[in-house]
């Protein structure tokens, strides 16, 4: 039982990382119907930015967070203006290929600037450790949970009570109607990219403080899509629930089944198997909207 609980709790930690990536992804999708494959790379860039500000420049945490938000805002604006806006009205594949190409460029830049090495800045961020009975709760899961919950609460408030939030929801619903009401869709797109880039970068800084940062961190982004699909592509709450479900089930399955398999490594593909199952049997996820298609 302890083994199971420990697996489940470590899985939660992983699940919160998935959820953080998934939230950023869902925001962009909700507003502009663009699938952002580069979301995992935002998290990686965030981790490296944290290293630069905290270790190289030796700044305090509050200054790091402010600078990171500024950098993330600039990055989001630049990406939206230079890469995504020319593609408005282009087919879906063009947008997806664009975000993949962006992910490659970001990875290349990270390799160039930070040398693609494993960087860590343990002890510079406040960490939370909790022990319940014999099970130790890893700090990642608490920090991830905290950041995800704060991010989700802020976002839900934003979507519910502010004008721009309403504009964002409306844009996702029908671009033409929104434009005829005088809402600038380009502003909405820019805001959505900025928000998801901030969520990614801040999450990356906190994660980097706990488990370090390296280039393969971005590849978690691919697995996080299983979360997005499980939770439903346009549900922010679904991203968190999906993240927890995937993280826990992946860890538990790997913990119990890996010794039985010759090559092991089930955790590597478990999200993808889950993804295929969800896609075949429930393509709209647990909380996603079912859209009816007309000719």
């Amino acid at each position, binding site marked *: 039982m302890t083994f199971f609980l420990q697996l489940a709790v470590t899985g939660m930690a992983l699940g919160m990382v998935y959820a953080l990536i998934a939230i950023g992804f869902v925001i962009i999708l909700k507003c502009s119907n663009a*699938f952002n494959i580069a979301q995992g790379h935002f998290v990686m860039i965030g981790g490296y930015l944290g290293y630069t500000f905290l270790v190289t420049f030796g700044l305090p945490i509050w200054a790091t967070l402010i600078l990171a938000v500024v950098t993330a805002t600039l990055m989001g604006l630049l990406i939206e203006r230079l*890469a995504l806006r*020319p*593609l408005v009205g*282009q087919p*879906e*594949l*063009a947008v*997806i*290929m*664009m975000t*993949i*190409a*962006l*992910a*490659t*460029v970001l*990875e*290349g*830049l990270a*390799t*160039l600037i930070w*040398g*693609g090495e494993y960087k860590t800045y343990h002890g510079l961020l406040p960490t939370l450790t909790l022990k319940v009975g014999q099970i130790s709760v890893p700090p990642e899961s608490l920090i991830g949970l905290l950041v995800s919950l704060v991010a989700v609460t802020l976002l839900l408030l934003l979507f519910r009570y502010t004008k721009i939030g309403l504009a964002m929801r409306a844009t996702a619903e029908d671009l033409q109607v929104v434009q005829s009401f005088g809402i600038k869709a380009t502003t909405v797109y820019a805001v959505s990219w900025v928000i998801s880039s901030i969520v990614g970068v801040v999450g990356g800084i906190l994660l980097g403080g706990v488990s370090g940062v390296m280039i393969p961190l971005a590849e978690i982004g*691919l697995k996080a*899509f*299983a979360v997005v*699909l499980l939770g439903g*592509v346009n549900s922010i709450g679904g991203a968190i629930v999906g993240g927890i479900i995937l993280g826990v089930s992946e860890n538990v399955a790997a913990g119990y089944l890996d010794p039985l*398999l*010759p*090559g092991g*490594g089930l955790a*590597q*593909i478990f999200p*993808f*198997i889950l*993804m*295929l199952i969800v*896609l*075949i049997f429930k*393509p709209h996820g647990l909380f996603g909207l079912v859209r009816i*298609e*007309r*000719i």
Partner: protein
Amino acid sequence: MGFGSGAFRENYGQDMALLRTRRQWGLLAIFFVFLLACPLFCSDRVLTIMTMIGIAIISVHGLNILTGYCGQISMGHVGFMAVGAYVSAILTAKLGWSFWTALPCAALASGLAGLVFGLPSLKIKGFYLIMATIASHFIIIWLILQLRSITGGADGLAVPKPQLGGLVLNSKASYFYLVMVFACLATLLSLNIIRTRAGRAFVAIRDNDLAAEVMGINLWSYKLQAFFIGCVYAGVAGSLLVHYYGFASVDQFPFMDSVWYLGMLIVGGMGSIPGAILGAVSLRLLDELVTIAGPILSAAVAAQAAASLALISRGLVIILFLIFEPRGLDHRWEMIKAYFKLWPFSHEEGE
């Protein structure tokens, strides 16, 4: 694009013909002579590059039929190449079959894998299908690593070189001929597939699958046919790849290569056979440029500059093409041809 005066199309056969004028036949003949003569004046390095381009062309033709013509976006193409590669490798290395019987089996196995992993395409499309095909890539690679007793797992598998009669194709030149024959056959086959009933159905599904279904096109059958055909190409390409290296390993089939095959389609032009060839050639040449420029840059800037240049150059090329020429090099080439043909007038006479 019209032809010069005097090239009449008097019946359906002539209208459908791939080569219509004597000049086209002549150019094709010159091209074949050039290919035959390549090993005479090309160094081994150039031949290797051309062999790799040939394999990429075969693979991209398959992806072009699946994604460019049928609109079913696949990001697991390299996974299907791996299926073909390993089936062919196991049949020749473990069971001692000849390359010529193993290759069709590899193609068939890839096609069947495509059918299985293409099943979700009946319910989902666009981004969801991309995710499903990405998932299939990782599952295939994982399965290959799991079945260690027959695939060699992470250690890989030594593969014998193909033989033709008593001749072992182990020189660069002989393998170059082999790949080029397959590349030309693949091109011819693609050109013919898209002119059949199935090819027209693919285009209808791409343009609007609901409308296509209402018109009486059997989506179930044609989408799976597209997956089968596309993956057969991938299987042939994968098999040729491992026999060229004489070694099969999962490292030869990284996930990002699937993305670059899609990138080749975008650079060349989606849904165009010359586009697929142009895209494969130009992105492969870009890679070669990076391999040459990388060490120089590494020496000048920093050690990691070469790796970063490879990533950034590929990403930037795709970004620039998506923004400035989303219809690809093929479209640009047609525009250039039209410009010279119509000069000094800027527009073609209306239809």
